[in-house]
């Protein structure tokens, strides 16, 4: 290496201070890191939301947990406790055999043990039925009597930890259900708390008889007393074949009889009498119409049928508009099973049910018509039970082995069609998009369609933009192109102050002050608005007709001095005329008194069949417009003012008027900026929350009627998230709503940016 030439010393005035270089380098990195972290942060938010949403679309996961020996016997019923730790089996004699499934081989493990109702020794049991929702067995005897037996599980939590489940039977005395002392073959019981009925089917010689009794329960201050028979009914006249299935809903308001020829009879009980309300054939279109199984789903308003060919359908009770009564109708169809079901167990927390026969077990979700899990198990299933907590599945095989499976399916209701498709929920007459996340009953099913929310978002945005766009754009054009600069200096900051109004204040004003005013005077508001528009055009035209000597009195840019009083006058006239119009045209007759009432609020629903609410899209559009106008106005005004002065002068020098210059030259040149202004305004309207929460009533409707409210995606999140259980279906659905909102704005912004770039390229000024 050659010795380096000593460098010529640099004079101090040319030396760059190290701090300057260092700071420059630092800021360079700092800005790069800052920019990157913003991109990363946004991506992480997206990823986070996605991770919250993804579990919704995972199917049920099932894994075997263990097997247990059950004493061999001829079992007719299988049931289980809340934790699926102490299931029981009932044999033909009516004895209950309990099997401990906890810690086999451990010190506390109990061998199978038997419990019996007190009176079992005295009677001969002919039928046992089990209602898993009430954890209640129903016994029928061979001499025509019945009793209920509650299987009362009790959990204690000893100090050494864990849980100890003990069981106790609580039976009612035997009660007579029919005068015929012959075996009860089918038995069903329903108790709503107010009324209770029991129905029993017997065979007297070769004739089938159906008897029902209504029960009363003595209630005292000390608690519920004994049940006793109140009235007896002979329903045999309604039988015209061999009844195979018998069900009484828990509301005790009817009896359902499935005949062996595939017909189902629905007798309605009004508290005093039974009336035949409906006869239907679930498998009318099949060659073999016979019903193999017929069971209730949670809530007892849906019936799950299987046919011998394996067809699986659900019929639900809903109001038939033609008959004006609640009748059963076909609502859901599932993929066929291999054959008719030999076991069935409904979930107690949701609308899932476990069904199958032979080796096949299938977990299905009624609402979404989806199969959550289906498998051919390596044993022949005779009985099955779905754990009450929806976390276990128990199967008994023909070798008397009990198989326990752990079920992990936290979001059974979640499916594409739950969120985006029409679903006929129980009790509804037709499939529809519905959002209703909470209800008054335990067996209430959430309705989680995002469609009303998406439509609500679009509706709110639409009405806000319809109001804000013309005003903001025209105001911006006027301010930048026509208004005197000295006025403009005043107008622009005022508009920008408007943008800084907190939306909660706007929402508050809208809900409590504006909404009542507008709803009291809809014709006036509409007329005043219309009058302003018409007057603007007419006055503008008349102004052009005025002799020049009058027109020159006003300097260009001060025309508004003549215009504003006219506008105010016209708006006031429109407002007053509105009340006159209401008195003459918006008149309805009060059906109860026959009086004529002039009220738009009553007339609108009467004339159009649509709703009218005080807090409606019209008000929201109006107030959200206030939030959006300043944004669009400011950005548009900037874009217009940034059009090179050379274009404007060029146009004016060629003899174009100010309006022609604005429309033909300035507007197209600024179009990219105006477009972004509109898109930013749109983004604000789509994401706006507080105004919508406060001023819309938050009803998730699917209509574009300006006089009803709506619920937007953002408002929905704000309203529901505090109520949503952490990581629950609702919680994740709200995140799905957030994701949809995210994608909507992302899509709009992307399209907007592409278009904006095109426009900018097209109208790029030469430098």
């Amino acid at each position, binding site marked *: 290496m050659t010795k380096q030439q000593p460098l010529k010393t640099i004079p101090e005035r040319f030396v760059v201070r190290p701090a300057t270089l260092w700071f420059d380098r630092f800021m360079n990195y700092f800005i790069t890191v800052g920019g990157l972290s913003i991109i990363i942060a946004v991506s992480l938010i997206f990823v986070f939301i996605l991770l919250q949403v993804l579990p919704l679309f995972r199917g049920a996961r099932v894994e075997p947990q263990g097997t247990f020996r059950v004493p061999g016997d001829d079992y007719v019923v299988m049931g289980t406790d809340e934790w699926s730790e102490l299931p029981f089996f009932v044999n033909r004699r009516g004895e209950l055999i309990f099997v401990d499934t906890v810690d086999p081989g451990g010190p506390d493990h109990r061998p199978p043990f038997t419990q019996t109702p007190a009176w079992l020794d005295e009677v001969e049991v002919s039928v046992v039925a089990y209602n898993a929702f009430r954890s209640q067995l129903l016994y029928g005897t061979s001499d025509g009597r019945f009793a209920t037996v509650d299987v009362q599980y009790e959990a204690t939590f000893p100090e050494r930890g864990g849980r100890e489940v003990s069981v106790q039977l609580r039976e009612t005395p035997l009660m007579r259900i029919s005068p015929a002392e012959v075996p009860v073959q089918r038995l069903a019981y329903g108790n709503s708390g107010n009324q209770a009925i029991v129905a029993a089917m017997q065979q007297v010689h070769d004739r089938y008889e159906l008897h029902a009794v209504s029960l009363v329960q003595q209630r005292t201050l000390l608690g519920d007393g004994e049940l006793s028979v109140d009235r007896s009914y002979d329903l045999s006249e309604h039988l015209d074949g061999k009844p195979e299935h018998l069900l009484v809903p828990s509301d005790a308001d009817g009896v359902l009889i499935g005949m062996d020829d595939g017909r189902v009879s629905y007798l309605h009980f009004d508290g005093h009498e039974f009336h035949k309300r409906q006869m239907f054939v679930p498998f009318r279109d099949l060659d073999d119409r016979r019903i193999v199984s017929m069971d209730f789903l949670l809530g007892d308003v849906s019936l799950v049928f299987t046919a011998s060919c394996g067809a699986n359908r659900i019929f639900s009770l809903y109001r038939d508009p033609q008959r004006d009564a609640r009748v059963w109708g076909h609502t859901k169809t599932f993929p066929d099973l291999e054959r008719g079901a030999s076991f069935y167990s409904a979930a107690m927390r949701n609308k899932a049910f476990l069904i199958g026969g032979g080796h096949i077990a299938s977990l299905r979700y009624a609402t979404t018509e989806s199969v959550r899990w289906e498998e051919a198990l390596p044993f022949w299933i005779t009985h099955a039970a779905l754990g009450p907590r929806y976390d276990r599945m128990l199967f008994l095989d023909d070798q008397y082995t009990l198989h326990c499976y752990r079920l992990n399916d936290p979001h059974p209701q979640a499916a594409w069609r739950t969120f985006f498709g029409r679903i006929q929920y129980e009790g509804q007459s037709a499939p529809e998009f519905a959002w209703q996340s909470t209800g008054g009953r335990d067996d209430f099913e959430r309705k989680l369609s995002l469609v009303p929310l998406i439509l609500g978002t679009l509706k709110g945005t639409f009405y806000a933009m319809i109001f804000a766009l013309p005003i903001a754009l025209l105001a911006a054009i006027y301010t930048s192109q026509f208004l005197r600069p000295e006025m403009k200096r005043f107008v622009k900051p005022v508009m920008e102050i408007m943008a800084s109004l907190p939306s909660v204040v706007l929402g508050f004003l809208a809900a409590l002050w504006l909404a009542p005013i507008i709803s009291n005077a809809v014709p006036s508001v509409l007329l005043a608005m219309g009058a302003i528009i018409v007057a603007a055009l007419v006055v503008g035209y008349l102004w052009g007709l005025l002799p020049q000597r009058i027109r*020159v009195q006003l300097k260009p840019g001060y025309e508004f001095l003549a215009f504003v009083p006219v506008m105010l006058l016209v708006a006031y006239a429109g407002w007053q005329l509105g009340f006159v119009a209401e008195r003459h045209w918006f008149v309805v007759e009060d059906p109860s008194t026959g009086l004529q009432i002039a009220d738009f609020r009553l007339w609108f629903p009467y004339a159009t069949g649509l709703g009218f609410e005080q807090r409606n899209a019209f008000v929201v559009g109006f107030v959200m417009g206030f939030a959006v106008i300043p944004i669009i106005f400011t950005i548009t005004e900037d874009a217009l003012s940034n059009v090179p002065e*050379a*274009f404007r*002068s060029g*146009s004016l*020098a060629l003899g174009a*008027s100010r309006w022609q210059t604005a429309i033909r030259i300035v507007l197209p040149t600024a179009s990219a900026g105006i477009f972004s202004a509109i898109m930013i305004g749109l983004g604000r309207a789509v994401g706006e929350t507080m105004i919508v929460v406060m001023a819309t009533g938050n009803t998730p409707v699917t209509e574009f009627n300006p006089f009803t409210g709506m619920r937007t995606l953002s408002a929905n999140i704000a309203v529901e998230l505090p109520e949503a259980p952490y990581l629950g279906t609702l919680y994740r659905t709200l995140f799905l709503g957030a994701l949809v909102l995210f994608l909507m704005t992302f899509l709009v912004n992307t399209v907007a940016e592409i278009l904006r770039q095109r426009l900018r390229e*097209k109208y790029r*000024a030469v430098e």
Partner: protein
Amino acid sequence: MNDKHDGTVAATGGASEIQQRRVQVAQRRKKIDNDASAQYIQVCDHSFFYGSAQVLFDLNMDIPERQVTALIGPSGCGKSTLLRNFNRMNDLIDGISHRGDILIDGRSIYDPYLEVISLRKRIGMVFQKSNPFPKSIYENIVYSLRVAGRNRRAELDETVERSLRAAALWDEVKDRLRETAFSLSGGQMQRLCIARAIANRPEILLMDEPCSALDPVATGKIEDLIHQLKEEYTIIIVTHNMQQAARVSDRTAFLYMGRLIEYDDTETIFTNPTEEQTEAYVSGRFG
């Protein structure tokens, strides 16, 4: 031609002097109305203010028809302001006011009953920086017709060809009339602006340093063009370039600090100016 008025007196007099001046202006106007051989454009005691700052001081000059009149002077002398006053382009600016008058064909441009738009249709203007609209070449030229509501295809086509030929641009762009005007070169763009300015056949053409952003070749073309255009138009051109003023103009006005120092035939100004300041400026000793 040497209609030189004593216009350099500062406007410092009292109310009576202003009154007197008004009478003078009125008299002059009357005289012009009666005088058939009056000059085409007459600037009478014209003063101009931006707010309280006076930028033009009692200018008086008569501009002949179908000749090229050059306005020269150092930066800030008010020559551009004067030019922009002819078609009232300064109206766009906040807080302006004026005194005196400018008459075109005997009619005041400040006449309140005169539509500014019609004034501007009569006076074409070419700006310092070429400013074609972000439209096609064709649409740029027919713009003045379109805003007047004249949309007949034949007329538009005829106008485009005539204007482009007059601006010596036709052969270069006739095959790409639908292309954006931004595809032209700098010199072509400026000629396009000239073509656009004469599309509506104005009487007067104002040019505000039309060649300042152009290279010598393009400048030469524009100057040739000015020579041809003066057959038909009265041209007023502002220029910084003394040689250009000498080459293209018939008359030259030298302005300095808002005052008209000297106004005469171009040849006189450049060879034998009366005023010492003019001599110093045109010979390049200041400015």
